[in-house]
């Protein structure tokens, strides 16, 4: 007896409910694999046009043609979730994928980072991204491709530079708002207080008029991490449509961030659940189960091809093994609590124990610039750091707005102490170039050279003028 996907999906959903998964409804859509490739490249089914996606796309196409990469599913959290399956995959493969997707759907509803992100961005990111794309197409019609592209060059380059500790809809700084609405009671209260203590008893008179010209408040009042927001709010000469593009990119970044920060947990959780759901799905013909599990072991395996050693850690495999142990040792309820409260940083540090690391045969290696790769002697903390290092700060160096100068100049600073080393200077100059084209006033970036001495970078000045 064979089972069609239409029959499998509702039964799988019922089984998932029984086993305690809670998720928003899922819309499954079977699409051509070419479309899947695009979803994987753009990160969203319909997204704003940009040439950089074209480069990623051609890479993906080449890899796909060479059989190096295969995309099974993509699911977008929301209410409903939107899941895309490849129409050329076998029913058995797609049955596994359906089970996998249900695991993701459970995760994205219950994990707090995801829940927070969705409460900010809304439950319809697919539609919203499409609306952004549509709006940008309209702007291209009116102002032309070149100008829109210059803005997208800058906005997309700054994609990871957001601050999700702040709300998506975030007001301008207090101090600058009250300066704008001068004369209100709130604005007046402060100077009065300051006037009173401006001069201490016994201090020389004659300086009394100085406090009248209070220095304007410093912007930003603290180093600002959200570059996209800051530029959209404070750029001296940006047009409204340009600010809109920055905010659209920012909104999508707010959506992407939890996906990025929970990849190991999320993929592991979905893999754990597809394995378990398939095991317990008595409605599945036994041959179909065997075929499904074959796909499972293809997805959840540490090595590519025949090799017995890999220079990357497959997040599916790592997450899957960790979840297996957590459920086994602490029970499902405890595992669900971990799933809800952790992100990859806590998950790896708390649950990738020395024992697990040994069992998984994880190691740290050092790759020298001359090409030599050598396994290093490392402890567990070093292993954690190596796995998590590329994930800090949305995978980007820590660059903050230091100061908005009186003449409209923008001063950025890289947090060298936290990043451990300076920026790649050539690339940084190019990015400053992008920013300069929308900021339209001087842009400076403080970073450091190889010896840790401070460097002031200015835009490259090259490239095509606007």
């Amino acid at each position, binding site marked *: 007896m064979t089972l069609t*996907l239409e029959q499998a999906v*509702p039964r799988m959903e019922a089984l998932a409910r029984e086993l305690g998964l809670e998720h928003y*409804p*899922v*819309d*499954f*859509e*079977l*699409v*051509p694999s070419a479309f899947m490739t695009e979803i994987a*490249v753009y990160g969203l089914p319909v*997204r704003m*046009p*940009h*040439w*950089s996606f*074209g*480069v990623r*796309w*051609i890479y993906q196409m080449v890899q796909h043609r060479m059989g190096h990469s295969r995309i099974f599913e993509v699911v977008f959290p929301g209410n409903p979730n939107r899941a895309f399956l490849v*129409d050329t995959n076998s029913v058995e493969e797609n049955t596994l994928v359906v089970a996998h997707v249900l695991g993701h759907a459970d995760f994205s509803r219950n994990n707090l980072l995801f829940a927070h992100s969705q409460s900010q961005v809304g439950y319809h990111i697919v539609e919203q991204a499409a609306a952004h794309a549509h709006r940008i197409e309209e702007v291209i019609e009116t102002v032309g491709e070149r100008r829109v592209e210059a803005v997208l*060059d800058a906005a997309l*380059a*700054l994609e990871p530079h957001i601050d999700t500790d702040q709300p998506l809809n975030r007001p301008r700084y207090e101090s600058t708002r009250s300066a704008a609405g001068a004369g209100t009671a709130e604005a007046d209260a402060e100077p009065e207080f300051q006037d009173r203590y401006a001069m201490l008893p016994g201090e020389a008179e004659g300086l009394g008029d100085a406090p009248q010209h209070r220095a304007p408040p410093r912007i930003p009042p603290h180093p600002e991490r959200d570059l996209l927001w800051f530029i959209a709010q404070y750029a001296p000469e940006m047009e409204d449509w340009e600010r809109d593009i920055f905010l659209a990119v920012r909104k999508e970044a707010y959506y992407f961030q939890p996906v990025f920060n929970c990849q190991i947990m999320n993929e592991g959780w979905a893999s754990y659940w597809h394995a378990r759901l398939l095991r317990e799905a008595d409605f599945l013909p036994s041959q179909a189960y065997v075929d499904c599990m074959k796909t499972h072991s293809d997805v959840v395996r*540490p*090595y590519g091809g025949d*090799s017995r*050693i890999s*220079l*990357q*850690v*497959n997040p599916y495999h790592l997450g899957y093994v960790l979840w297996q142990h957590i459920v086994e040792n602490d029970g499902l309820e405890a595992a669900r609590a971990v799933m809800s409260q952790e992100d990859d940083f806590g998950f790896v540090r708390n649950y990738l124990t020395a024992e697990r690391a040994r069992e*998984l*045969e994880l*190691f*740290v*290696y050092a*790759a*020298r*610039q*001359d*090409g030599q*790769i*050598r*396994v*290093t002697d490392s402890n567990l903390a070093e292993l954690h750091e*190596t*796995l998590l*290092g590329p994930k800090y700060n949305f995978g*980007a*160096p820590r660059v903050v707005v230091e100061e908005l100068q009186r003449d409209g100049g923008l001063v950025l600073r890289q947090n060298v102490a936290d990043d*451990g*080393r*300076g*920026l790649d*200077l050539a*690339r940084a100059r*190019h*990015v400053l170039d992008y920013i300069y084209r929308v900021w339209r006033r001087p842009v400076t970036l403080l970073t450091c050279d*190889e010896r840790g001495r401070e460097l002031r970078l200015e835009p490259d000045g090259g490239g095509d003028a606007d």
Partner: protein
Amino acid sequence: MTLIETHGSDADGHWYDLFSRGTRDWLRHNRRVREAVREQLPDLVAGSDILSRPDNRTVQVPVKFMEHYRFRLRDPSEQEGAGQGQAEPGDVLRPAQPGHPGAGGEEGAGEGDGGVTFVLEFRVDDILDWLWEELELPNLQPKQGDSVETDELIREGWDRRGARSRLDRRRTMREAIKRRSATGPGAVPISNDDLRFRQLARRRKPSTNAVVFLLLDVSSSMDEHCRKLAKTFFFWALAGIRRQFSAVETVFVAHTVEAWTFEEEAFFQVHGQGGTRSSSGLLKVEEELEAGYDPSRYNCYLFYATDGHNFSEDRGKATEILARLAPQMNFMGYAEVSHAGHRRLDTEVAIIWRELAALGVPCGSYALSDDGDIWPAIRAFFTDQADAAEAV
């Protein structure tokens, strides 16, 4: 739960079957690369192997994928990574690569080696148009006077009668509409009176014929480097001339102590042995000119590429022939190809050319020792040529 299935051919097929956003953005990337390439085109085309294309109408330029820059930390001297599998501390998973750049590489590794490249094809005509714009090169000055003329048919006016192939439908419809709006409802849609035919007229027009003599020294002192420079210079000079004249004929002459004419394909492959006698080549050019090209009907150009070494006893003879050729030529160019570090334009042949220039003959000398010299030389040629034409 909803399950939607899509087949490419279905009537209710989805919008994503209609177009590929990936393709769109990839093509946009390629357009950007083209624009970027265009800005540094002179350097790129000077270095590329343009003549390898059979028809010489396109140039293939290897380019890198554009990088969308983001802030990134500088590459550490040692990159750490996590791996999985049976490995012990100290195991070397991959030995150092011999050809690998060592530590302390350039800033911005993404712009150095190792980027993925692909090949963009440019039409030579487009490149020339860009270059002329970019370098603000003057146009070639054809010979003055009305001796060089040909007949040409051009379109001129309309008539009510004519060959059917020359029916102008647009104008015919316009006539019909005019008539119908004048006569009101019930008018014939189109009548014979509405028909309009394009007419042709015969015009006399200055000739745009040109002949280019390319003279190459293939003696043993001309090595691969020199030949490539000569070849590139010839190609672009020729392309520039072709851009201007509707019919350009070429004569390829190679010489050592003797001289031969060649077909274009064979010309650059020729290797000769022995010494150099410029006069033999120049003599051959003169023969060819007299045999096939009436200077009153052709704009004539001569380009001579050599490393400049010539027997000094040949100087007199070579000068004499050049002096005979000069009045028949629009312009004569001398390209001295050498290796970097040589003193420029200080050879036997350079002296001859300098003497000619002193006599007021329209000519110019250009020293080429690497790819970077090609475009200044081409530009100098077209500017000299314009100056010379003005002076006449």
